[in-house]
């Protein structure tokens, strides 16, 4: 999945000469946490977070503070240079940037112009969709030897039953490199027939399992 599929294109921006007070108002009004700062060519020259703005604002504890600080230009507190991503970057790549750099927002830039932003929240939303937990499904886990061709072998069991697969995940099996756990989310309320088929084919099910005695 590429960044352009998940980015927000309606981006709230400010020019470098805007005031900190304006930034504060935009953050409140749009309930956002980041504002890219762009020049007249829509090039990203900085970014401010709600934390930057709060750090620059007078403390709520001190009276008679100088409210004039809010009239300073935003470029005086913006972070620069800015790490940006390309619309054709992969979502899993930018997940790495979020993790490594501890950012929560990345501007998306194409031909030197800002065209969108991706936030941590967008990233998590994508992750939820990838796991398939947002649509109706039943969950099955199969332990398989880690070898070529195993996934289509197991998947074909669902195909034969005409059971639609919502999502597939391949997990490591503890630290054992010889096995993998295949997690299928399937669109049926009655997984019993397909579970029986998987058992009959000799695969080991991690869920549902037989640990509990008489129940399957």
């Amino acid at each position, binding site marked *: 999945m590429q960044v352009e599929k998940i980015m927000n294109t309606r981006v709230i921006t400010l020019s470098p000469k805007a005031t900190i007070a304006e930034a504060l108002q935009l953050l409140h009004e749009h309930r956002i946490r980041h504002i890219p700062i762009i020049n007249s060519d829509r090039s990203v020259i900085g970014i401010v977070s709600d934390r930057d703005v709060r750090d620059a604002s007078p403390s709520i504890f001190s009276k008679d503070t100088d409210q004039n600080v809010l009239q300073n230009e935003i470029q005086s507190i913006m972070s620069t240079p800015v790490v940006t991503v390309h619309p054709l970057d992969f979502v899993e790549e930018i997940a790495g940037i979020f993790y490594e750099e501890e950012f929560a927002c990345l501007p998306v830039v194409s031909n030197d112009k800002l065209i969108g932003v991706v936030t941590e929240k967008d990233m998590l939303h994508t992750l939820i969709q990838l796991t398939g937990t947002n649509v*109706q499904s039943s969950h099955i886990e199969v332990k398989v030897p880690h070898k070529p061709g195993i996934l289509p072998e197991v998947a074909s069991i669902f195909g034969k039953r005409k059971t639609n697969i919502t999502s597939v995940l391949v997990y490591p099996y503890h630290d054992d490199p010889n096995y993998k756990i295949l997690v299928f989310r399937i669109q*049926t309320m009655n997984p019993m027939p397909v579970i029986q088929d998987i058992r009959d084919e000799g695969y080991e099910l991690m869920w549902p399992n037989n640990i509990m005695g*008489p*129940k399957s």
Partner: protein
Amino acid sequence: MTCKASFVFSDAFLNYHFHSDHPFNQKRVLLAKELLEASDTLSVSDIIEPRMATEEELALFHDKAYINAVKKASIGNLSEEEGLEYGLGTEDTPIFKNMHEASSYLVGGTLAAVDAVLQGNSLHALNLGGGLHHGFKRKASGFCVYNDGAVAIKYIREKYNLRVLYVDTDAHHGDGVQWAFYDDPNVCTFSIHETGRYLFPGTGNVNERGIKEGHGFSFNLPIDAFTEDESFIQVYESAFKEIADFYKPDIIITQNGADAHTHDPLTHLCGTMEIYQRIPELAHELAHQYCDGKWVALGGGGYDIWRVVPRAWSQIWNVMKNSNVKLGSIPESWLSKWQKKAPVTLPTTWQDSENIVPTIPRKAEISEKNYKILLSALKYTKNKI
């Protein structure tokens, strides 16, 4: 104490039949009815006929386009591709002849139950043919075509303008009804179910609390797989009492799926008949306490149709009619008629023996986790409306 109660039944309920291998089998309704007749708690004068819900009534909740698709499927005129868009012709909800009529009867049964209670003819009414809580606005799913509960609640809102508390004890999350009223503060939904971590439909998390004006009026108790009676009853009873007191409904609708039993083949909960005695008793008590008795109960899931569902569902009626569950032996006449047809040995008493439940090594942890979920679900009920 005896209350005036109505039992909705027609043989037409049995026409809601996908195919012989499908787990959803309405023979359950007949088995329960005959068990009640054999026990002398159900008489001809208690029974009311369902009607067929009209298309206008179905459209209170469902899209016209979806109703038309079901009607086409009903006479074999729906293409496979069209069907998939509406969830029709899948493994879960295969197409069958006259499915529109059969499904409309189940909805009509629930509407008849609602009218019986709200026109003052009865205090309580039971439609075991209903409770099809997975039906969506424009999609069939989870064995459900039309969602009788959602249609009936819309009907109550339009025709009687009452505040409704919907309580769903099916082992699967009552998603169709929840989403139907997710933004509506005049309908409060409460579902206890096995966590969606593994089980269909996967939703019903404790943090699904409703949106917009409806925020705070959707409650979910997703309990752990292998939960047993004690923990189930503890969290269910606390939650239901607290929610009823918080919401103060005008009428209670219960969906009484009977698939949280340890024998049920589709789920992983470990309940026994204990919970199916307590569930109707509690609904009865709270309906009298808050709603002058107005209580409509529906069927739902339940896939051990021989050993579990007939007894579980009969107890709802026993409570409606006589305020008490039945104990002791199952009538010999019912056993001798149905044992011949059952692939399993039918239970001979109303209660289960304890040894039908497997030993669950993590029992204490499961109970603790369920209790935490309860606290989280009820986090906001202290703020009275």
